[in-house]
C-alpha cells in the first residue's frame, strides 16, 4: 500500500494489518544529523497521534507520533548503533517500528504522498 503521512512528518505504510512507521525525508533533512533514536518497547500499545518514540539530532530532540493506533510488534534495532540510517534512508531502511494496526480506517485522517508534498511546500 502507498505511504501516508501525518502533519507531524511521520510516514506509515500498511501491508495487511502490519503498519511500518518512520519519519519523512523532509523531517530527517530538517532535523539534521540524527544522533539517537529512542525506540518504543515491543508490545507497547499506542493510540493514533500519541507519542510513539523520540528522536535526537545535533539541533533538537523531537517526539515521534504514531500515525495509527495499534501495538508495537517490531522495532528497527539497527538504529541503536546506526541512527544515521534515518538521514540516509528515512523512508526505507531508516524505518522506526512496525505496528499491528487496530483500525485501518484511521488512514483516512492522514495525507497521501501528493497531499503531504503540497503540505511541506506550504511550510517553507
Amino acid at each position: 500500500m502507498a505511504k501516508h503521512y501525518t502533519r507531524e512528518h511521520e510516514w506509515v505504510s500498511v501491508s495487511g494489518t502490519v503498519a511500518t512507521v518512520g519519519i519523512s525525508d523532509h523531517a530527517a533533512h530538517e532535523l539534521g544529523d540524527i544522533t539517537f533514536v529512542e525506540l518504543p518497547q515491543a508490545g507497547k500499545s499506542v493510540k493514533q497521534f500519541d507519542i510513539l518514540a523520540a528522536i535526537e539530532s545535533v539541533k533538537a530532540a523531537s517526539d515521534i507520533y504514531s500515525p495509527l493506533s495499534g501495538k508495537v510488534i517490531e522495532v528497527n534495532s539497527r538504529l541503536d548503533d546506526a541512527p544515521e540510517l534515518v538521514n540516509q534512508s528515512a523512508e526505507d531502511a531508516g524505518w522506526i517500528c512496525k505496528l499491528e494496526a487496530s483500525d485501518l480506517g484511521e488512514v483516512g485522517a492522514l495525507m497521501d504522498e501528493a497531499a503531504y508534498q503540497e503540505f511541506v511546500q506550504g511550510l517553507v
Partner: protein
Amino acid sequence: MELIYEKSVPGRTGVRIPVADIPRTTGGFPAGLRRFEPAAFPEVSELDLVRHYTNLSRRNFSVDTNFYPLGSCTMKYNAKVMENAAALFAGCHPVVALLPGGEKLVQGPLSLVWELERQLAEITGMDEVTTQPLAGAHGEMTGIMLIAAYHKARGQKRKYVIVPDSSHGTNPASAAMAGYEIVTIPTAPYGDMDLDAYRAAMNDQVAAVMMTCPNTLGLFNPYIAEICRIAHEAGALTYYDGANLNAILGKVRPGDVGFDVIHVNLHKTFGTPHGGGGPGSGPVGVRAGLIPYLPTPRVVKKDDGSFAVEAHPEGIGRVSDFFGNFGIMVRAFGYITLLGREGLIEVSEQAVLNANYLMARLKEEYDLPFDQTCMHECVFSAARQAKEGIHAIDIAKYLIDRGFHPPTVYFPLNVKEAIMIEPTETESKQTLDSFIAVMIEAARCAKESPQELKDAPITTPVGRLDETRAARALQVCCE
C-alpha cells in the same frame, strides 16, 4: 595543553604532611570499600598546580571576559560586591535555626529569608513565596506539585497540563514528572499560543496552563489576562514561568494579571551566578488559595518582630534541605535591595531597549520571522544565508573567532535556523555596536567569502568540533 596527570612526577608534592602520630585504623569499613593502594592523584608542586589552572582559566569564556548574548539564558554581569555579601554568612550553619533555642542565634539569616520572600511577593504580585526550590526547573516541579495538591484537596483528579509549543522544555517535563499528560498548543502567526486552539483544549480535566511571558521568542503575549480567565472558568490554575521576568520588572506583575503560581530564577533575573557557575535558586510564589500547600517549614515573623521557623504541616513536604540555597538568596536580596524599585524598573527597561536596538540594527541583514517590538531578546533566522549554504552554526562559530560568545542557535524550535540574541541590561552601547558590526560582517562573508565562515573557529585551542560524532560516539568515562 597537557593534562594535570601528564604533569605528574612521582614523589613531587605541594605540601609536606607530618607523619601521623596516632595509630592507623580501618574505621570498621568493609574490605570491599577500602582502598589498598594510594589514590591515583597527580603529583605536582603548588606552582605546577597554580600555573595549570591559571592557564586553563585563560581559555575559559565568561561574562567577565567577553560579551555573552546567549538567548534565553540572561548572561548578565553580576556585581562582585554580592560575592562579599554572601561570604559574610559563610560561618553560619543552617541547622542552627532548627536546634532548640537556635532561632535566637540566627535572627539575621532568618530575617533575610523572610524579607526576600516579601520582596519577591511584591515584585511578582503573589501572596506568599517559598525559597526552598534549588533551581528554576525545581521551582516548576514544586509549583506543579502545589497545583496537584490544590486539586486533590478539592477531590479532583485532573489529567492534563497545557503548554504552548514555544515553552521551555522543562515545562512539559515538570508537568509529566508530576504525573500529568501534556497538551501542546501550536504557535499562532503573531508569535504566541494560538488562542482558539487553547480555548478548544481547555476543559474540566485540565489542571493548569503553563505560560512563559515574554515567551521564548522574546514576545509579550497580549492575551495573557484572557488566557488566565479561560483557565479559571474551567477550574484550572495558571502557572507563570518566570524565566524571562527580567523583561517586565516593575512593569507587569503576573499576580495582577491572574497567575496563581510563579517561579522566578534568581540567577537570571536577580543577579546570582549561573548554571555550572554556582548553585541555582528557583523560589515559587503563590496566590492565597495555594498557601496551605507550600513546602514546610516556613520562616515567620512574630508579633514582637522576631523571626521563627514553623512547621507547615498541610503542605507538600520539604523540597530541599533547610531554606534552599541560602548563599544565592543573600546575593538576590542584596541585588534587589541595592537597586530598589527604580533600579529594577531600569533593569527591565535597559534589557528591552538593548534587545530592540540589536533587532533594529540587524534586521536588514538577517530574516526576522516575528517582526514586532521585542522584549528582552530577539530571534533572527539565518534562512536567507542557508540558501547560500551558510547555516546558523557557521555564523555562531565565526563569532567565537571575533571574541563574542555565540547567540543560542536552533532554538526555539519553531524558527528555522534560529539565532536567538539576548544582550541583557548590563551591556553598553559600545559593546552592542561592536557585536552588530561583526554580525553584519558575518552576513557579508556569507555572500562573499563563505569558506571563512565554514572554517571558523580558527583562534580557539581546538577548531570546529564534530558535534555529530561527539553525540553518536558518546564517551563520558575517563580512562
